[in-house]
């Protein structure tokens, strides 16, 4: 992106969040919007991380504590196909982590109520498969 100098702006200039009009924003998910290059959604803070969260769907109870408390809008909650009583239905679920915008603060893991946790903080360079294969067992009493 070409950046303008401080003296090259018109007075009252505006940064636009989207390239085109988005109707009904509160109900249009991020993947269906046309973000402008000035939206921080297009930027990454992945390099801030020392640790990253790993999500294990097997233990998740879809309580959405991680979603509500993530300060970086990085817990993805979306409709997902699930099986209930032999029937396939769409249900709002925790589906994963947005690693472009996650800063690795660890709040999501700390508020996750399951035993074992469904979110664990691991070294940024650790591999997801290895972590999932070695997921801790049920602890009984917390800590």
């Amino acid at each position: 992106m070409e950046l303008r100098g401080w003296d090259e702006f018109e007075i009252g200039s505006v940064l636009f969040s989207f390239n085109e009009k988005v109707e009904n924003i509160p109900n249009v998910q991020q993947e269906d919007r046309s973000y402008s290059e000035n939206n921080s959604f297009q930027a990454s803070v992945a390099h801030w991380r020392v640790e990253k969260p790993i999500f294990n769907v097997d233990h998740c109870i879809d309580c959405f504590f991680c979603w509500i408390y993530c300060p970086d809008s990085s817990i993805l909650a979306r409709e997902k196909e699930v099986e209930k009583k032999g029937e396939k239905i769409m249900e709002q679920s925790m589906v994963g982590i947005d690693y472009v915008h996650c800063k690795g603060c660890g709040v999501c893991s700390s508020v996750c109520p399951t035993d074992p946790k469904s979110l664990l903080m691991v070294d940024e360079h650790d591999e997801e498969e290895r972590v999932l294969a070695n997921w801790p067992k049920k602890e009984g009493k917390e800590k």
Partner: protein
Amino acid sequence: MSKEIKNLKEYSKAAERFEGAHLLCPGCAHSMIVREAINATDSELVISSGTGCLEVSTAVYPYTSWDVPWIHIGFENASTAVAGAEAMYKALKRKNRLYQPERDVKFLAISGDGATYDIGFQFISGCFERGHDMMYICLDNEVYANTGGQRSSSTPIGASTTTSPSGRVSYGKKEKKKDIVQIMAAHGSPYVAQVAPNKWKDMVKKLKKGFDAGGPVFINAMSACTTEWKFDPSDTIDVSDVAVDALVFPLYEIENGTKLTITYRPKNVLPIKDYLGLQGRFKHLMKKENAHIVEQWQKDVDAKWEYLQRREEAGV
């Protein structure tokens, strides 16, 4: 319209209007509060922010993190910026000249405690006296965190800040925290409340009441600051839980200037020592020579709780 939100599953269907890759610290409660507030409504929002952490971190050229019309002017005038927009909106509506009259718009100002308790106070007071249909949310982290941690009039007694450092001769800030909630209620506004992001259900209820109040609404939101309160970023919610359970931040609301209701009563009230012990800014208060500060503070917290309960009972 403000939504009825019963559980987090419903809440989580909201599409984000506050984007990531803002530059707030990892674990910052400011962004939790902003997300909770924006996602609590389906209305379109016009938002202003005064100078502070939120403002400098969410509008770093060439980026904006806001998917709503957002404006920053100065340190002091988040309130008047949005009040101006609201007044214009009303005037255009009255003259039938709104470009898209079917759109449902709410006006919101969000600033820190420095901009609210200190620098922008007279502007807010003016807006509330004029009765604009707006909501003002104060992100109360009890310090000027954006400029390096100077004390504000929201900083509590005993906190060590860069302008009230603790050391051999001082236990930190000497003065007590200003009670902004009571001051704002004294303006007679329809709705004033204190919230905490960790109590999201309480917060959502209050936001709904606020968005529907139709007059100037003031919300004081406790915002635990990992950098200046000095705790680990992953502990933001834990620290916040202890803060409300120790009644350092009691959760209550005041309607029409007088009717006070306590909205959260901890099952186990914790001693404030538990709260202080979690944070680096109070480390020195754990020393013997400063025990009298903690003792006095505990008495103040107890007295305040007693006062709130009596006001609630009396309904005046």
